[in-house]
């Protein structure tokens, strides 16, 4: 349901009545084929929201080329007809599909659901009101969103970076960070938006790629690149791309005469006042909750934080204050794509937990007639040529293509359709297949990427194997890209049809395979992430084995006291342990480790070994790796020699026990980034800044006369944590910035420690006498992570953390099917992110465990035993470890050949591309099929 908003949520968890108001689209989505004829004729132009005002759109429009659903809509505020019926109506005239409906009306829907997920997102801060940056006045001051559009190939300048004022090439650009973030005076948003540092670096790097010689400068307060692989990206931006970073908050942007150049004044790191000119200034605008979303929160009756984000608990990060209503994404605090995607899956897990008892109750299965065996029949190819309204037919001479197709070998039937994808044409194709006894089908229309699944269903409905169809893409690859060349487009359409007909002749029936699933889970690691994942799976009704190396559940959380928002960790962890222990679907194996792994998705057999050497084999369908991480032991800052130098975790313990040195101490120095962001450990440990600030606040609160210093490189209290940093400064905790080349020095003076650091504001070295020095030490991956990774055939990254399949699209999946990752094993992170990731892993796992068998696409590698001689070249190239070498016996002689595990095979065909003997092929893409396409392509 698009163009819809929720106006009321009545009822309770498990039984909500949701009222949805659907605004009229004025375009029938069933009929619209998104050809774009309407938008071409529409005379009304307005600013494009998607292009952030950098370009125009029409009154009838689709938001952007990849929009889902790809259907047009009419903007009632701009449409001439809707303002004055009868005045225009061009779109209705040109729409061949008859999709325009000016009489469309608002509809109210009442929906009965068990749970609600709120994912309304954010808006970017509008810097117009604040005035100081010149936005809205100076044409060459733009927001980062606008720059994003300028740099995009689909943007208003097709990726060329030009100045809006005079369309001249940009030579010098400045980025100003924290516009609309970390600023209560100008915008009222005190929090950090979390994502702007990274996007500014990315945009600066891309802009430099686009414009050779471009100078790009980022003015910032703290560089917050705390995510996985972000620190390396920052370093590469400096060293490889040459982006300049200046630590200074810029207070304003001024114009220089009538040149539209922009003047920025700032203080450089030597303390000198500098005036510099730029062609363009980009404002790195922050994230905020829009007004209509605040109204939605009120409608939903959920609590919000002071920063106007949905309030959640750190141990239930997707649960709002109202039971049965969940949240994910930037609505619950500013966050980047990977974390938003993680939370999306986490919300699904939380919903599944609530609704597990009614799983599959509303689902139905489609039935199809019995499949006809055509293996011994002569090919009888039917060709259906689509006009796609006028999309194809206005460029390609479809009648000539039809005539030509009829002359091709094995083609026994040809027909043209206005829209091949419409329901009536589908029914007609089924009829023709049966009438004409067709056994291979060519659809000459659009792209198989969107429409092949539809036509496969059509074949199934006609009793044919679904793989006996081939599409000729005469729209996206032809009529749309050769609009002004109908002669060549028609010739090309003939070629494409000939190629498809040649290929389809060699198509054979392929059988989709299904693999049975052991509906049990294995979770490795009994920390917060492991327990959360295990408990969620158990509550969804699945049996779970939880393997823990030590004799205690709890993991690293046992060392921690409070989350950033102040929740008491020991209480919550105890509750979690109790829940796990009392759930009889969770089988706990303490003091056990994984010693052997066999099998594949749905069918793993894992051997665990306990302390006494006893082994047990567990059959499971999925595995979640949540093995946590360790803490590094520092060898600098006198840690090894002085009792007055401790790590953060040690300090927490001493502080809690009211140890006498800590109690008596009057001067505390925290040193950040010990073992992080340097040398081989070029990553941020993410949690230490917040941890140190929290500890500092606690000791200052106990006795305000104490001197507390935090020596930091960049203070990374991201998101709503920023309020702790603000509070700490207000309390008089002293923050001193240091650079990697000028690290603090700690000297043992017996009864005191002496800390030397260069102060960048005073521009002189400082000597601080400290009673206690607290080192914010790095989080390190488990030293044996690689061994476990090898057992499960999953990868670890260069730092030694487990590597997910894709940082944004599949943040908790491994590329090995059925394996998932959560918690510190993946990367350092605070508790609420570990919990969200654990829930996400559980949700992803449940998509498999909730089925008795998983059906897989039939496009898989198959061995031809007549040709395979077991040379094994393909084994090394297979990225999915799907191929093994087996022995065969022919006429008493023992030889070798390969065997493909279809469950692991993804049909990529690297084996086929490597095999020197045609001993392996991928169904649907055999050498013969591809050769036939080549031959057909070059035949005329």
């Amino acid at each position, binding site marked *: 349901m698009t163009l819809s908003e929720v106006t009321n949520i009545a009822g309770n968890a498990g039984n909500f009545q949701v009222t949805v108001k659907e605004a009229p689209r004025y375009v029938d989505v069933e009929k619209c084929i998104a050809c774009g004829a309407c938008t071409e004729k529409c005379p009304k132009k307005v600013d494009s929201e998607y292009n952030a005002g950098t370009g125009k759109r029409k009154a009838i429009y689709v938001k952007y080329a990849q929009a889902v659903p790809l259907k047009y809509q009419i903007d009632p505020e701009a449409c001439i007809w809707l303002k004055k019926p009868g005045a225009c109506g061009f779109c209705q005239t040109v729409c061949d599909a008859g999709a325009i409906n000016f009489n469309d009306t608002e509809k109210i829907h009442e929906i009965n659901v068990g749970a609600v997920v709120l994912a309304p997102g954010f808006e970017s801060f509008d810097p117009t009101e604040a005035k100081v940056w010149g936005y809205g006045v100076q044409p060459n001051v733009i927001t980062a969103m606008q720059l994003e559009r300028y740099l995009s190939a689909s943007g208003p300048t097709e990726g060329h970076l030009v100045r809006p004022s005079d369309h001249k090439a940009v030579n010098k650009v400045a980025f100003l960070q924290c516009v609309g973030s970390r600023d209560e005076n100008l915008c009222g948003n005190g929090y950090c938006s979390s994502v702007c540092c990274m996007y500014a670096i990315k945009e600066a790097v891309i802009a430099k790629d686009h414009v050779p010689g471009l100078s790009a400068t980022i003015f910032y307060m703290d560089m917050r690149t705390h995510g996985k692989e972000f620190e390396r990206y920052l370093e590469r931006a400096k060293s490889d791309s040459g982006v300049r970073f200046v630590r200074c908050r810029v207070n304003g942007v001024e114009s220089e005469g009538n040149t539209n150049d922009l003047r920025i004044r700032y203080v450089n790191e030597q303390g000198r006042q500098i005036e510099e000119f730029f062609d363009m200034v980009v404002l790195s605008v922050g994230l905020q909750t829009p007004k209509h979303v605040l109204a939605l929160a009120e409608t939903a009756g959920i609590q919000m934080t002071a920063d106007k984000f949905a309030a959640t608990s750190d141990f239930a990060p997707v649960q709002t204050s109202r039971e049965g209503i969940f949240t994910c994404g930037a609505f619950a605090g500013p966050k980047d794509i990977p974390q938003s995607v993680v939370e999306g899956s986490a919300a699904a897990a939380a919903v599944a937990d609530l609704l597990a008892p009614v799983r599959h109750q509303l689902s139905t299965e489609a039935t199809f007639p019995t499949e006809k065996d055509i293996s011994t029949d002569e090919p009888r190819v039917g060709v259906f040529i689509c006009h796609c309204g006028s999309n194809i037919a206005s460029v390609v001479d479809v009648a000539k293509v039809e005539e030509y197709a009829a002359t091709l070998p094995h083609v026994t039937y040809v027909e043209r359709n206005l829209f091949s994808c419409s329901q009536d044409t589908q029914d007609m194709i089924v009829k023709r297949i049966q009438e004409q006894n067709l056994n291979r089908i060519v659809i000459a229309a659009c792209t198989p990427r969107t429409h092949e699944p539809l036509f496969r269903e059509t074949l199934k409905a006609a009793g044919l194997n679904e793989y006996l169809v081939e599409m000729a893409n005469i729209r*996206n690859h032809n009529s*749309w890209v050769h609009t002004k060349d109908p002669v060549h487009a028609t010739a090309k359409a003939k070629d494409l049809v000939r190629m498809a007909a040649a290929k389809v002749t060699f198509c054979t029936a392929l059988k989709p395979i299904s693999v049975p699933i052991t509906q049990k889970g294995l979770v490795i690691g009994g920390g917060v992430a492991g327990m959360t994942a295990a408990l969620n799976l158990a509550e969804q009704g699945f049996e779970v084995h939880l393997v823990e190396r030590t004799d205690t559940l709890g993991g690293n959380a046992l060392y921690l006291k409070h989350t950033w928002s102040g929740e008491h960790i020991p209480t919550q962890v105890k509750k979690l342990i109790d829940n796990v222990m009392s759930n009889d679907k969770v089988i706990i194996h303490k003091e056990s480790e994984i010693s052997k792994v066999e099998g594949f998705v749905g069918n793993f057999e894992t051997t665990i070994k306990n302390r006494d050497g006893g082994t047990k084999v567990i059959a499971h369908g999925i595995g979640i790796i949540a093995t946590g991480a360790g803490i590094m032991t520092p060898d600098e800052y006198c840690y090894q020699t002085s009792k007055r130098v401790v790590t953060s975790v040690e300090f927490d313990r001493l502080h809690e026990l009211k140890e006498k040195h800590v109690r008596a101490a009057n001067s505390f120095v925290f040193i950040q980034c010990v073992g992080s962001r340097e040398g081989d450990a070029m990553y941020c440990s993410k949690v230490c800044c917040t941890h140190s600030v929290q500890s500092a606040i606690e000791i200052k609160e106990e006795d305000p006369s104490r001197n507390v210093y935090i020596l930091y490189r960049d203070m990374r209290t991201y998101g709503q944590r920023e309020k702790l940093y603000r509070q700490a400064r207000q309390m008089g905790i002293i923050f001193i910035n240091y650079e990697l080349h000028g690290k603090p020095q700690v000297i043992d003076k017996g009864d005191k420690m002496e800390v030397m650091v260069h102060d960048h504001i005073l521009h002189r070295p400082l000597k601080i006498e400290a009673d206690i020095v607290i080192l914010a030490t790095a989080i390190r991956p488990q030293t044996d992570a690689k061994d476990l990774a090898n057992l499960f055939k999953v990868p670890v990254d260069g730092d030694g953390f487990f590597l997910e399949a894709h940082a944004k699209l599949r943040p908790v999946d491994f590329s090995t099917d059925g394996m998932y990752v959560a918690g510190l094993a993946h990367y350092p992170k605070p508790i609420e992110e570990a919990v969200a990731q654990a829930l996400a892993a559980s949700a992803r796992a449940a998509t498999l465990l909730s089925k008795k068998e998983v059906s897989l696409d039939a496009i898989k590698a198959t061995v031809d035993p007549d040709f395979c001689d077991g040379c094994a070249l393909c084994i090394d190239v297979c990225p999915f470890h799907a191929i093994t070498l087996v022995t065969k016996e022919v006429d008493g002689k023992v030889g070798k050949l390969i065997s493909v595990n279809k469950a692991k095979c993804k049909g990529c065909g690297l084996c086929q591309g*490597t095999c020197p003997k045609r001993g392996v092929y991928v169904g649907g893409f055999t050498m013969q099929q591809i050769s036939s396409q080549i031959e057909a392509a070059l035949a005329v």
Partner: protein
Amino acid sequence: MSFEPKIIAFCCNWCSYAAADLAGISRMQYPHNVRIIRVMCSGMVHPELVMDALGQGADGVMILG
């Protein structure tokens, strides 16, 4: 008559084939000489197929992935 080369382009279903689709959606105009063959991965393209294409008169072969 001017020379009209014929070029065979092997496009990976997941990236370059999708990009060619998007070029269509964006109505980007380009020369008509390319014939695209969809494969499930550019690694699937056997060297023999490239030789095949050149041998049968293709003026160029692109493997996009």
